[in-house]
């Protein structure tokens, strides 16, 4: 692919998403949630996928995991290569066995994402019992070890407790313990800290980073919060209306955004050095996915929009070393 970040020929990425499309067939028409997404992930690398609600970041994650409800979702085009094998064409039974030991996922709201009627230890132990056929006692012992690894105090006493008996941060630790139970190579974290308060957010992010280094996992971090990913991510992909609009190393994007949308997102973060100024926001709303605007999907909200933006969709093109932007005026944005 011409737009691939790491161009190395013959070298295989751990995970490679190519031209992924996802559509939802609803009563209001076809919602085009993902419209050709490409990215790759290597061992030990952290890729942040950034975007507003409805930009397609969670759908991308669920399409990689293969847990989209089909129907209403369909994947009309694209490939998801894991170690060179296309997950999308793999028989379902074979693919199921990759969930957990190879690719794993944690979700935003740990309270609703954990089953309320089973003890947390049972839910962690289920990974060992189902995938490895470990007996109940040993699986529980491993669950306790994992709970200790994710810093849950008094893990031994709490292994039989239920999700509602834990705090939000502790619940997310349990989700993480469950996700890393079988040493997956890829961990997808879908807004892992959004439901948590700020101090706990930092702890969870630190834990994720620690575990990633320990297990050399490729980490996909999905968030709408630029602040969360700044310290953790290696690369960032910014999504809008089901496409990647900008892709860059994390430092570059903060220093010099290459797309008006990224710029808008950065400007909407309160900053200590700009005290007293009015916080800017991106005007308007993300588009209805059944009626994505022609040309550049962002043009109705873009302060720089010209005639060309209304008719011609900008391609994701190289605008510098290791970075791409999908904007007709990316150079102007970069120079601004």
């Amino acid at each position, binding site marked *: 692919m011409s737009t691939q970040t790491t161009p190395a020929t013959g070298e295989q990425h751990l995970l490679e998403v190519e031209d992924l499309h996802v559509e939802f067939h609803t009563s209001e028409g076809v919602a085009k949630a993902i419209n050709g997404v490409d990215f790759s992930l290597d061992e030990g690398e952290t890729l942040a996928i950034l975007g507003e609600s409805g930009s397609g970041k969670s759908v991308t994650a*669920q399409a990689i*995991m293969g*847990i989209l*409800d089909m129907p209403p979702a369909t994947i009309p085009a694209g490939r998801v290569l894991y170690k060179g094998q296309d997950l999308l064409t793999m028989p379902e039974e074979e693919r*199921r*066995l*990759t*969930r*957990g*030991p190879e690719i*794993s*996922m944690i*979700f935003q*709201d740990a309270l*609703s*994402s*954990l*089953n*309320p*009627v*089973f*003890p947390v230890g049972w839910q962690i132990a*289920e*990974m060992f019992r*189902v*995938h490895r056929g470990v007996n109940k006692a040993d699986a529980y012992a491993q669950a306790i070890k994992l709970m200790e690894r994710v810093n849950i105090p008094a893990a031994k006493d709490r292994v039989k407790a*239920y999700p*509602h008996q834990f705090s939000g941060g502790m619940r997310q630790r349990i*989700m993480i313990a*469950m996700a890393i139970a079988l040493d997956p190579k890829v961990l997808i974290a879908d807004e892992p800290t959004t439901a948590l308060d700020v101090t706990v957010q930092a702890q969870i992010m630190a834990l994720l980073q620690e575990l990633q280094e320990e297990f050399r996992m490729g980490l996909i971090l999905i968030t709408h919060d630029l602040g969360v990913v700044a310290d953790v991510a290696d690369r960032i992909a910014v999504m809008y209306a089901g496409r990647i609009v900008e892709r860059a190393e994390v430092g570059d994007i903060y220093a010099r955004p290459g797309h008006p949308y990224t710029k808008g997102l950065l400007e909407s973060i309160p900053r200590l050095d700009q005290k007293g100024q009015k916080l800017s926001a991106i005007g308007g709303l993300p588009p209805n996915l059944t009626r994505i605007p022609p040309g550049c999907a962002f043009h109705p909200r873009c302060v720089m929009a010209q005639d060309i933006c209304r008719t011609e969709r900008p391609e994701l093109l190289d605008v510098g070393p290791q970075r791409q932007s999908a904007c007709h005026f990316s150079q102007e944005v970069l120079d601004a």
Partner: protein
Amino acid sequence: MGKYIVRRLLQMIPVVILSTFLIYAMVFAMPGDPTAGKCGERPCPAAYIEKFNAKYHLDEPLPVQYGYYAKNVVQGDLGENQYGRPVAEELSERFTVTAKLAVMALIFEGVIGILAGVLAGLRKGGFIDNLVLISTLFVISVPIFVTGFAAQYFLGLKWEIFPALATGKDPSLFSLVLPAMVLGSTSLAYIARLMRSNIAENIKSDYVRTAKAKGLTPRRVVGVHTLRNSLIPVVTFMGYDFGALLGGAIVTEGIFGINGVGGYIFKGIQNRDGIAVVGAVTALVIVYLLMNLLVDLLYGALDPRISND
């Protein structure tokens, strides 16, 4: 947990006292002479009436009458009905039949209702879903005496698949199959619909998504993670329904000639047999309260978020 059960049992005492008193008062407020018809075609002799009144303390005020009655009940004596048979003995005979019928109806409505609900809920809008929705609507709208007579005529008499009657003191389990199906049919329809909507809702929940992401088999995702949560309201419904089933079923018992509790109370009311009615209802109140307690305990066991302490 033990403390909770003791507390609940103690709470039952005032409920039992008050409800039995109300029934006692209502039965004895019914117009008519309690000795009427006791002595054939002619009025009873004065000596008999006097003896009768003394035996049941009928000259005393109502609360005192009730007091004497309650004292006997506590000692396990529910009195004698108008034919001179002990009510406790008759009830236990009838109750055995009713309990058999109730358990069979519960199994029927539970197994088939849950199964139909799961299949319908998993494919909302599909063929099975529509079939379940239409057939349950039909069952709910048709009165039980129609269902009962139709089942008796076709399955019992015309095609002779099941016995058409279940008479006698100890009817065979096989002869109770048809009445149990009729008795459980309405609840089956409600259970199927309840289960259907629970499954359809829970299958979209976040924890089911997590279960899929854990790489579990579809069978385990549905059978363990979705089913457990969806069963909670259904089990509660079935618990209350079992309490109601144990109270007897006048119509179904009538159609199939079953000697159950429902018919006993019905006949007792018709014949102004106060002692029989009050005795039977007292027993039913206690059974119903115990079923309620059982349901609450079951609810706590199924859903750890509900605390019974």
